[in-house]
């Protein structure tokens, strides 16, 4: 029984990590209907950016986070403004293949600069500390921090979306970009801002990932799949849905892993396939797919 409680809590906390992976993708998919195949590679890029900064600046990973967020936001803004905005239109192939091209470019540039070695970030004792909850039950401090961060990031984005003028602009552009232009909204700039925001969240995901585990330049695609599955399970345009999607994925993997060590990742994929077979639009869709 306590065993299963541990599995469940591990799953939920792993889910927090997945939710962090997925939030950036959920933003770009929700606002621009853009599936960014390079999303996972951006997470890895952020992780390596932090790794590269920590030593020369002699700062901890958490102190490096704001710098990485700024860098990634700038990178995302330019990526959207210079390249991805040109792919928007009725043909879904173009954004898919252009971001796929970027995925290959980012992976191989990282490989060239950092070699194929796995690297991580050291955040000190917080990584191994745990909170005993009585009996054999304990919760790691770091996974708890990840989950708390995921919830607060999504809470903050929710506030931005529903309480600010910028959020209103995002939602209007997501609903109908043509009419949005008739309101004086420069949709291309809005998209670039959305990508900057998504990339800042990607930076959080990347830094947290590198603290939790070692990262290699070709890890991006697996991160993308997790992120995409969480978004699809949760439903398009719903940030809380994305959080719950991440949780479902995390629990499914933890349970699968407990039953047989080889089947952890598969059970996550199977959970995703099960959800999309039963509810192709996800569990809590808010926005209609165009």
């Amino acid at each position: 029984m306590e065993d299963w409680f541990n599995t469940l809590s591990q799953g939920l906390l792993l889910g927090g990590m997945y939710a962090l992976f997925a939030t950036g993708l959920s933003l770009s998919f929700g606002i621009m209907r853009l599936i960014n195949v390079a999303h996972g590679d951006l997470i890895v890029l952020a992780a390596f950016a932090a790794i590269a900064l920590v030593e020369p600046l002699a700062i901890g990973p958490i102190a490096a986070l704001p710098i990485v967020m700024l860098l990634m936001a700038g990178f995302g803004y330019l990526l959207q403004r210079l390249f991805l905005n040109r792919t928007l239109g009725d043909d879904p192939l173009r954004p898919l293949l252009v971001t796929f091209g970027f995925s290959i470019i980012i992976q191989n540039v990282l490989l060239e600069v950092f070699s194929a070695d796995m690297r991580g970030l050291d955040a000190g004792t917080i990584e191994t500390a745990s909170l005993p909850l009585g009996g054999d039950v304990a919760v790691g401090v770091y996974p708890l921090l990840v989950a708390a961060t995921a919830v607060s990031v999504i809470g903050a984005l929710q506030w931005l979306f529903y309480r600010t003028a910028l959020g209103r602009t995002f939602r209007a552009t997501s609903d109908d970009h043509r009419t949005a232009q008739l309101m004086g909204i420069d949709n291309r700039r809005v998209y670039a801002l959305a990508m900057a925001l998504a990339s800042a969240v990607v930076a959080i995901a990347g830094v947290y990932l590198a603290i939790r585990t070692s990262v290699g330049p070709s890890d991006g695609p697996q991160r993308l799949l997790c992120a995409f599955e969480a978004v699809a399970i949760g439903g398009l345009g719903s940030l809380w849905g994305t959080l719950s999607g991440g949780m479902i994925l995390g629990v499914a993997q933890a349970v699968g892993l407990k039953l047989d060590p080889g089947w952890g990742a598969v059970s996550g994929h199977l959970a995703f396939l099960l959800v999309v077979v039963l509810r192709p639009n996800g569990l809590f869709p808010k926005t209609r797919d165009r």
Partner: protein
Amino acid sequence: MTEAMDAAPACRIECGSRASRLAGALVLLFLMAGASMPFWAEPASLRALAEFFYVLALAQMWNLLAGYGGMVSIGQQAFVGLGGYTLVVLGLHAGVNPFLAVPAGGIVAGLLALPAGCVLFRLRGAYFAIGTWVMAEVFRQVIANITAVGGGSGLSVTRAVATIPTWWRQSLTFWCALLLGGGATFLVYALLRSRYGLALTAVRDSEPASASLGVSVRKVKWFVYVISAVGCGMTGALIFITKLRISPDAAFSPDWSALMFFVVVIGGIGTIEGPIVGALLYFALREMLGGFGTWYLIALGILTVAVMLWAPKGIWGSLVSRYDLRLFPVQRRLRPVDDERDATPPAVITAAPCAGTLKA
């Protein structure tokens, strides 16, 4: 288009042109010369050509699926891998001739495409694309958990392949590759000239519109999806005969999809000639830059992005729109019957997306 109809009531619909008939004859000659190659060519050039043909086969299958069927898949490696593992089961475990795994790999891939399709056809657009990738991952991880086929680290298939004398092994590999590459190209060509071809392009351009005109969208999509799976499965079995070693990571690698994208997109998606041009360019680039390792892959990535942004029709597609050049014509053209030498270019009927989607 309407002008041509009004002005010349005596028209016939024609698919070919003089260039295309010439091209057809050349291709036939080329294939016959190719078939005799094992008797006179160097093993090294046989190997290189075999690789060219199986890359072409994969590219044509993806082109059929995405360029004509409108189903963008990032998961065709699922079927490449299944073909490869059919080789393991048949060649190593059942001890039959490994080349029998080529058709068998196609059958296995085709059969497993049925349950996979049942799931994936509930998804659309980008969801479908990533869903196919997830499906390939599921196959990869299931295979990695079966120790009988080598588990996660894979195994060598040399024992099965080595039973065949070297000359025969090289020649059979080459002939299979030639058959797959040529066959895939011809299949797409024949399919598009058949009645199915019109239905196919209609579905790609607008699903609701073709459904309202009586095209069974589901049937057409299933047909294309399964054919593409069979083609990738057969090619997969052949690929691992040449590679001699198989592992889940190599067999179900997304790099297979990347290869297909690259060849088709650079060459020209939705054209039959495009993948041929793309495959030629791919091998030329690899010859010239392959030694540079990651920089070569970065260059491929940049090229893909550049083509998709500035010449989305690819090399062949851009040539076609400039010179109206078609070696494998699959369009129906209206030509006046009485005057073959009519100087005006024939009207081309294509199912191009109409400007009417804009609300006037």
